[in-house]
């Protein structure tokens, strides 16, 4: 029983991180119809930013969340204006945007490698190893904090998308960019802002992830795949769908540790993806992600 409760709690806590990670990818895909392959690169960048600020200046990773998110937001807008914006839209641009953003990811990995070498780094704070008793199970304080931040991010995002003018404009552009031009929404600006928002979410997820896992310049590749699994499972545009999908992925991963050797857990997300694609191509909640 104890073991089971511990695993359930671990899944829930991990799911918060996965949901944040995936929402950035899903948002950009839903609005711009572009898969941001640089998502993994931004996750890695967020991790290094948090680690660098902590090890050089002693800034607590949770305090550096906001500045890192703000800088990544601007970086995302710059990337959109400078690169993505120049590609043709539609089917022809699909392959091109994949390749372009993949190229950006390779550059970012190389920059990280040159700056910080390829060694694994860990972000250790004074409370990294502290644990508390929650519902009869021993839980790491840091994991709870990661979950809380992720949850807060998702709630803010939900309010932003449903209650503000900007959010309504973003959702309108996702539905029909041409009509938006007619009613006076500046579509290009919405695209740029959305790209910035998705990029910032990736960096936040990376920073949070850095407090949990060791990372190196190729950190983010597995996270990109996990984000994609969650987006496919949960559909686009719904925070609740994303949260449930993240919970499913996290639970499958956590419980898989009981049955298969550790090095195979990296393949679990992928097997789940293939199963969903075969059994429920429209995603679990009926919203078709693609096609």
């Amino acid at each position, binding site marked *: 029983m104890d073991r089971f409760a511990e695993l359930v709690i671990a899944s829930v806590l991990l799911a918060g991180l996965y949901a944040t990670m995936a929402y950035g990818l899903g948002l950009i895909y839903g609005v711009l119809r572009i898969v941001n392959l640089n998502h993994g690169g931004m996750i890695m960048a967020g991790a290094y930013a948090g680690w660098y600020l902590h090890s050089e200046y002693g800034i607590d990773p949770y305090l550096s969340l906001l500045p890192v998110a703000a800088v990544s937001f601007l970086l995302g807008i710059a990337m959109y204006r400078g690169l993505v914006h120049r590609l043709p839209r539609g089917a022809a641009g699909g392959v091109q945007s994949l*390749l372009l953003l993949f190229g950006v990811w390779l550059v970012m990995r190389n920059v990280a490698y040159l700056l910080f070498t390829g060694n694994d780094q860990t972000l250790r704070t004074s409370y990294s190893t502290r644990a508390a008793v929650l519902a009869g199970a021993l839980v790491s304080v840091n994991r709870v904090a990661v979950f809380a931040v992720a949850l807060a991010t998702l709630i803010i995002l939900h309010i932003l998308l449903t209650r503000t003018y900007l959010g309504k404009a973003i959702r309108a552009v996702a539905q029909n960019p041409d009509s938006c031009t007619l009613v006076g929404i500046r579509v290009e600006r919405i695209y740029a802002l959305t790209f910035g928002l998705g990029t910032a979410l990736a960096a936040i997820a990376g920073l949070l992830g850095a407090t949990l896992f060791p990372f190196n310049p190729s950190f983010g590749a*597995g996270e990109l795949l996990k984000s994609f699994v969650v987006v496919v499972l949960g559909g686009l545009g719904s925070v609740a769908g994303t949260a449930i999908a993240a919970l499913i992925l996290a639970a499958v991963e956590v419980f898989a540790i009981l049955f298969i050797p550790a090095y195979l857990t990296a393949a679990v997300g992928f097997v789940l993806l293939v199963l969903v694609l075969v059994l429920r191509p429209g995603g679990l909640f009926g919203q078709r992600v693609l096609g």
Partner: protein
Amino acid sequence: MKLPLPPWVRPRALIALLATCAALALGPLLHSDVYIHNLLTLTFIGIAAALAWNWLGGYLGQVSFGHAAMFGLGGFVAAKAEISMGMPMVFAWCFGGVIAGLYALVWGHPTLRLRGPYFSIATIGVGEATRLVGTYWDWLTGGSSGTSLPMHPNLKFTLYWYALALAAVAMAASYALRRSSLGLALLAIKSDVDAASDVGVSSTRLQDLVLFLSGAMIGVCGASYGSYFSYIEPGDMFGFDRSISWVLMGVIGGIGTIAGPALGAIIFVLLRQYLIASYPQLYLGLYGILLVLVILFEPLGLTGLSLRVLRRARPDLIVSGSET
């Protein structure tokens, strides 16, 4: 005498391919530079692999970032077949290729069914998962210490002609897959799967066929690469940068064109030899910058560039850009 050629084969192209192959096949008899000989062998394997990648990435528009999975699998299966079962080398290559092609079908069939970038994203996961499994699966790969293949005197030298034949077969297949009626069907699938199915193109079967061919060819390339180095190791065979190198060859030469990726492979091997070998810590970034620049300024790569130059030089000629 008139050869009974199918109507889609241009005699000029056939002659050009045969003449090039003949010249390259006779080359080693004229010079005795071992360095160039070996460099050409590796270039041929690179050309075959880049063309095979292009069947999926270019003709079908399904970019794969994980083709090293099939490269490695083909290499290790062939090595195993040669060592444990005593299969002759070329049969072992084919066996490795078939297994690699079937493996591509196992994960590619479900992901190709859906439109958009599902396939591309899945390939990143497949590449990584296969590398991990390969590193731990001692029986097949020998684990991180790798597998040594039987060495024959002169094998490395004669492999030149095997590799040349491989590249020639890949080139002919590239031509056939684009110019025959099958090529038209693939173009139709690439631009609109639904419309293609509506007019009677069996998209599912054709996509699977191309996936199998591409995986099998890459697998044979992996097998020949193994025979060439006579020692293979999972970290290298399944490596991520190996997958990227084919993407880059395709992009440099021109994605979806018939001969572009072959050109890209030649440029890439030279680039790697002279530039990237001197800056090993910069190669990923250089690949990335190249990708970004080509996609931004000339999405059809060198083929697009030469078409543009040709159009400017001879505006009276109608240069077909049907490769787009």
